Structures are given as C-alpha cells and as structure tokens.
C-alpha cells in the first residue's frame, strides 16, 4: 500500500514539474487502475491552474494600479499614518480600537527606528525602499525565443536607478560582460542589433541603487535563447 502511495506521489511530482503531461501513457495507466491517483491528479491540476490564475490576477491588478493617477482614499493615506504615528486618541479614525491605536503607534516607532538606523551596523539615514524588499526578475528566464525586453519588479526611491548587466553564460561558465545599461524603469528594451549581439545563453543581474550609488537589492538569473 505504501509502495503504491509512493509511486503515486513520484508520478504526481513529475506531473507537477511539467516533466510529463496528463496525456503521458504512464499517467493514463495509473489513473485507470487507481481512483485515488485520479483524484490526486485532478486536485493538483486544479491547484496549479488556480495558482497561475491568481498570479495573472495579481500582476494585472498591480499593473492597473500603477496606471491609476487617483483612487478613493488616496488623500487619507498620509493622515491615517500621521494619526497612527502620533497616537493621538482625539485624532484617530473612528474604527480604531484603542489597543489597535497603541499597537500602531508602537509599530510606528519600531519602523521609524528600523528605517533610521537599519540595524546596529548601519546608521545610514537614507530610508530608501521599505525594509529591503527583494528585487524579482520576471523575464527573460529559462528558455526563451528572444531575450528582450528585460523586466523586473522593484520600487525605487526618489533618485534611485537600476543597473542591468548581462554576462555570456554559454558553456555553463560565467563569461565576459556583454551588455550593460543604467535605467530608472523596471524594463529594458533591446534593439534588434542588441538582441542579436547577445550570446545563446546569458546570466543577467539587476542591482537597485540609491541616488548615492549604494546597493539596496540585487537579483540574478539565467536565460537561454531557444532559436540559437
């Protein structure tokens, strides 16, 4: 019984990773004899679809949010934070319970201290993006038809910039730098010539820099152009 369960789980793992599809004869054969496996496959397939759908919804919402110039409640953000920071009972929003207000005021002080001092070893005053949020590289990654445009997610503080550096990774060894650009946007378009000049396999890194040049976050990933 345990062997059968292990077999089901191994097959399910290969299915989840995309190594095999639901049309694979091995999957079909197992589904035909095991209702439990059939149920597992169905549930896993639904979960993966749900995750991808939720991701699309999240990306779509955040992209739309970035386009909006105004939104209900926008004028209240600073006031709400000011009230929470000040901890003034008379000024608090009506829905705030006293304990919540106290907690918010405490968090404000904690946050203020974190932003000001950034830890024992770093007394730098520049607050920058919040609490070291990571930089996420969105594309290109893995096998792609073309590399450009390069895209990533991160919110820069005022005066900040990104530095994109691409290295040749053909042969699984980090080769020479082949492309570099400094940008203020989360996207780097390539001209056709620039695209064609890039090697078959690359490793690319983006660093987020403060106005003074100090690094706040960085991320690296690799990509391979399948048409090469």
């Amino acid at each position, binding site marked *: 019984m345990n062997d059968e369960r292990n077999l089901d*789980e191994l097959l*399910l793992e290969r299915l*989840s*990773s995309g190594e095999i599809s639901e049309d694979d004869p091995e999957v079909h054969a197992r589904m035909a004899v095991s209702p439990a496996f059939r149920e597992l496959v169905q*549930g896993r397939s639904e*979960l*993966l679809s*749900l*995750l991808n759908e*939720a*991701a699309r*919804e*999240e*990306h779509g*919402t*955040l992209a*739309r*949010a*970035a386009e*909006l110039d105004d*939104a*209900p*409640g*926008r004028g*209240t*953000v600073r006031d*709400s*934070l000011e009230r*929470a*920071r000040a901890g003034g009972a008379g000024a608090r*929003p009506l*829905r705030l319970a006293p304990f*919540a207000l106290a*907690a*918010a005021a405490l*968090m*404000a002080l*904690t*946050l*203020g201290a974190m*932003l*000001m001092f950034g830890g024992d070893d770093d007394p730098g*005053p520049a*607050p920058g*993006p*919040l*609490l070291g*949020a*990571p930089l*996420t*590289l969105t*594309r290109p*990654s893995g096998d792609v038809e073309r590399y450009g445009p390069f895209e990533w*997610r991160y*919110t820069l503080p*005022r005066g900040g910039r990104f530095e994109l550096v691409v290295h040749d990774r053909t042969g699984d060894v980090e080769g020479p730098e082949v492309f570099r650009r400094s940008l203020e946007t989360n996207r780097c378009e390539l001209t056709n010539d620039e695209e064609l000049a890039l090697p078959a396999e690359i490793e690319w890194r983006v660093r987020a820099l403060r106005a003074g040049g100090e690094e706040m976050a960085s*991320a*690296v*990933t*690799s990509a391979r152009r399948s048409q090469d």
Partner: protein
Amino acid sequence: MKAVLADRREAFEALADRLDCVPRIVAARNERIGRPLSEEELVDVVQNTLLIVWRKLPEFEGRSTLETWIYRISSLEIMNALRKARRRRDVAAPPEVLEGVADRAATPARIEFEDLYLGLERLTDEERDIVRRKHFGELTFEAIGKEIGLTVDMVKSRYYRSLAKLQQFLASRREGDG
C-alpha cells in the same frame, strides 16, 4: 536631537510615499472584479488595509515586494468588505439592488482565490516564497535555487511539499463549505 527628529520625519515620509500605492491597488482590484464596492466602501478598505499593513510591518521580511504583500492583504480586506456590503444591502436594499451586488461580488473563483491566499499564509515562509517565485515570479527551479541558495532538488522537494499542503487545505475548505 534635531537631526534624529529630522531623520525620523524623513523615514516616515518615505513610508507614506510607499504606502501611497494602497488606494491604487484597492481601486484596481475593485475595478477588475466589476466594481462591486462604492467609493465610500473603498475608503474603508484602504484604511483597514493601512492599519493591517502598519501592524504587520515588523513581520514583513521582504520575501516579496511591498506591493505584492499589500495586494494580498487588501484582497482579503476587499473580500471582508464584500461580505459586509452584502449583509448591509440584504437588510437595507430592495431585491433588485441586491442582485447586482451579489452577482458581481463573489463568484466561486474569487472565493477560491481567498482560500488560496489563506492556504499560502499557512505554509512556512520558505515554502510560500518558493511557490510564489515559481508561479507569481515565473521562475524556473534552477533560478529559484540560485536566488535563495538551495539546490534544485531541495527547491523541488519543498515545492511539492507545499503543493500537497495547499491541496489538502483547499480540499478541507471545500468540505467545510459542503
């Protein structure tokens, strides 16, 4: 002391600038699900979201961007607001108004998103991080391993374990509904 106060003000201003995204995220989400909430209700959602963000800031470890973290909090707050709005309108509004609100507010798919986010919250930080990087960041196992310092096999095994947990959680929620 003046310098410290000036620094604190600067830090606070930076935070306020960053949290300016909250109303826009809330409005964008409302728009994408068919604008079931009124402007007044959206302002309430914004204030609730800000309070939760404020309260949870020390827990924010930077495993996702601030915006995606806020998106998750505000999505759950929007679901709460929809439930409240429906209850209010059940009492106060004539049936023809109710129909519109109910139809636009929460299809089963949106409830599933809510369950999915609740399920993600129940994973360990590392498991959630891997699932998010895989599906929301569209990264390969290799790229995830490189970013978080794990071998590809370790990433895969944690990913499968997370999927199994999520699947189990969603199944239990469905049974609960049934």
